[in-house]
């Protein structure tokens, strides 16, 4: 016994920790050099290509591709609507996870479907169906402006209008205040479900090798942990040395809600921007109005925690800041969606939004449970009302 202890003491801890790393490195080396499982792979290669972005230009089509399979792929020919077509590629040989840009000078027709099939060196065809071809907007001052305006209409202005409920909230009695807080809760639960559902669908659309679900989960957990850390910091500042204290103050809570809603709105902007850019949607008046109504209630949710009697009235610039935090990300989202959309990033972004909303829900829930807000007379009604308002206004934007 004693000898063993003495023996193990001679080897430093860091060195023992290194042993498995060296061993796995050796294993990797052996597999790469000797390739002992080569005899198992006599079957044809598995060839997969993900179409990450399709850009329709005045003089042709550009595709951003990624090798989404375990084996290298060589793109030999391109068929557009069942015709061999001229093309150029930045790299026709794609290793695992490698990307390539393909340019096809094809005279596509606006508003019509386009079928693109890549023929690989082994004769496999990998197809990409575009339901409706439409010119992809280029990022210039004019299009950036249009998308910013769009973000302004569906995100910034509605949220700012919603903030105008603050004076009436101030005057409302405690019962009604609880109603509105519960309404906020219901509204956020709706947004959470919506965001999770969208995020999961995006995860499924992400190239398999990039594992969209993990990206979504990473975003969500990152947001929750990040906001928890932020909360601890805010509390520390508020209570001086008194760390470990619970529930944040009304204004901090308002900012957290604004932040969570802002991230959700970024996802919303992303979705609308991408849908517009890929010709998936037409920008109807009804659509914009639907989003505006939908998002006005978000403003109410933000100011609800400020209505509590023990809260001081925040200065006016706080309202501007709250509106900006919740609304401006819509514009950023619209830009990203319109000009740099990829499902992998979108899955991550939706994860962040879902995590942020979950964290905010937790905050409000905790604040309300302290004064039994949710189980008060108007609590459940408020919760259902919040959910229903989002559901009904959501119908307009659907």
């Amino acid at each position: 016994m004693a000898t063993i202890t003495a023996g193990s003491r001679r080897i430093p801890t860091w060195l023992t920790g290194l042993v498995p790393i060296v061993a796995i490195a050796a294993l990797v080396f052996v597999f790469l050099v000797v390739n002992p499982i080569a005899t198992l792979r006599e079957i044809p290669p598995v060839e997969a290509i993900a179409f990450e972005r399709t850009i329709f230009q005045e003089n042709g089509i550009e595709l951003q591709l990624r090798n989404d399979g375990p084996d290298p792929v060589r793109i030999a020919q391109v068929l557009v609507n069942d015709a061999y077509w001229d093309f150029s590629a930045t790299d026709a040989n794609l290793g695992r996870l490698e990307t390539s840009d393909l340019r096809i000078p094809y005279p596509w027709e606006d508003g019509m479907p386009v079928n693109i099939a890549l023929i690989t060196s082994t004769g496999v065809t990998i197809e990409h169906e575009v339901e409706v071809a439409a010119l992809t907007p280029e990022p210039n001052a004019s299009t950036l402006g249009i998308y910013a305006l769009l973000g302004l209409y569906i995100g910034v202005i509605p949220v700012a209008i919603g903030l105008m409920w603050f004076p009436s909230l101030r005057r409302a009695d405690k019962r009604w205040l609880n109603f509105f807080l519960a309404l906020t809760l219901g509204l956020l639960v709706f947004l959470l479900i919506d965001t999770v559902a969208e995020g999961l669908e995006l995860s499924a659309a992400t190239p398999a090798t990039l594992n969209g679900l993990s990206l979504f989960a990473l975003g969500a957990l990152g947001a929750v942990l990040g906001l928890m850390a932020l909360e601890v910091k805010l509390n520390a500042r508020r209570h001086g040395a008194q760390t470990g204290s619970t529930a944040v103050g009304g204004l901090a809570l308002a900012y957290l809600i604004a932040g969570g809603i802002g991230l959700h709105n970024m996802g919303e902007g992303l979705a609308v921007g991408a849908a517009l850019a890929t010709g998936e949607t037409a920008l109807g008046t009804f659509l914009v109005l639907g989003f505006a109504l939908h998002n006005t209630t978000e403003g109410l949710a933000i100011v609800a925690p400020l209505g509590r009697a023990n809260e001081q009235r925040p200065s006016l610039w706080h309202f501007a800041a709250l509106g900006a935090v919740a609304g401006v990300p819509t514009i950023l989202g619209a830009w990203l969606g319109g000009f740099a959309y990829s499902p992998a990033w979108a899955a991550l972004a939706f994860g962040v939004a879902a995590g942020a909303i979950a964290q905010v829900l937790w905050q409000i829930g905790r604040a309300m449970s302290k004064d039994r807000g949710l189980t008060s007379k108007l609590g459940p009604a408020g919760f259902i009302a919040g959910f229903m308002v989002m559901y009904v206004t959501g119908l307009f934007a659907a």
Partner: protein
Amino acid sequence: MGIVTRRGLIRRLGAGALGGAAVLSGRGLALAQEHSDMTGGQHSDMSQPGQLGHGAGSLGAVGTVDHGRNGFDPTKILTDFDYGETSKDRSGRTVHEYDFLALDKEIEVAPGVFFPAWTYNGRVPAPTIRATEGDRIRIKLVNASAHNHTIHTHGIHPAGMDGVPGAGEVAPGEEFVYDFIAEPFGTHLYHCHSLPLAQHIHRGLYGALIIDPKKGRPDAHEMVMVMNAFDTNFDGSNEVYAINTVAFHYMNDPIKINAGELQRAHVINITEFDPLNSIHIHANFFHLYRTGTSLEPDEFTDTISMGQAERHMIEFTYREPGRFMFHAHQTEFVELGWMSSFEVS
């Protein structure tokens, strides 16, 4: 809110797209030079605008096929008539002897696109067997491939020489000699008749069998055009159509013929999976000899459709020099490779 669930609904709102319309002229976009990075600077002639009547623009395969690696060149196959080892038997009859080797081989059917072919003598289509009516043909088939194969000729012969399962089917490593008299005269074909049949034919086991009439025919520049197709992804429909295997080959390397000279093409359809194929020549008409079994033409036309194993002899003469297309008039096949041209000088 998102891309996936709402897209269907959003589209239905349909109130004028933000993006605006793009209607393109789209002809001869000068991007042909751009793919030098992948093809070593080679590209099809079709990507040079204005050369061809149809305004082919940027239609066509990118790059070129390595005929050296394939071991055969469609341009040579066109006029490669194989009379075999000829000798006379005791009765004075001419005997044509052939050595055929069944061989599995990967071939390039469009630039960079490889197909796991089954071949006779490593080429698709297989050698064009040519003899005169009444001659004796002896084909020794040695099977060096992984599957059973036969040579089934379209002609008149005894049952034992039919080249079907039970009569002249050759297992891997074995051999058989098909021995028959060449009749009737005409444009014929041969192919493998092992099962599953569609697979054995489509994989490349076919070739032309041309039997000349004893009287002979007028002098002409003769060509063999085997209309074939390849289902490269094995989904039951073809990705590549061609004559003599390589997509767009005679666009990149037009068939050189002389104005005023009689042209005689033996056109054979062995396309699998499609009920019909066809040939149409531009700016001209041809005399059609159905199955080549007559000395008088049956028809004067510029387009003829054929089912699988239908074959005809066509004769035409171009009066003026120039570049003339010829192709299937199933235009889908055209855009998938069955597009060719004559360079008349």
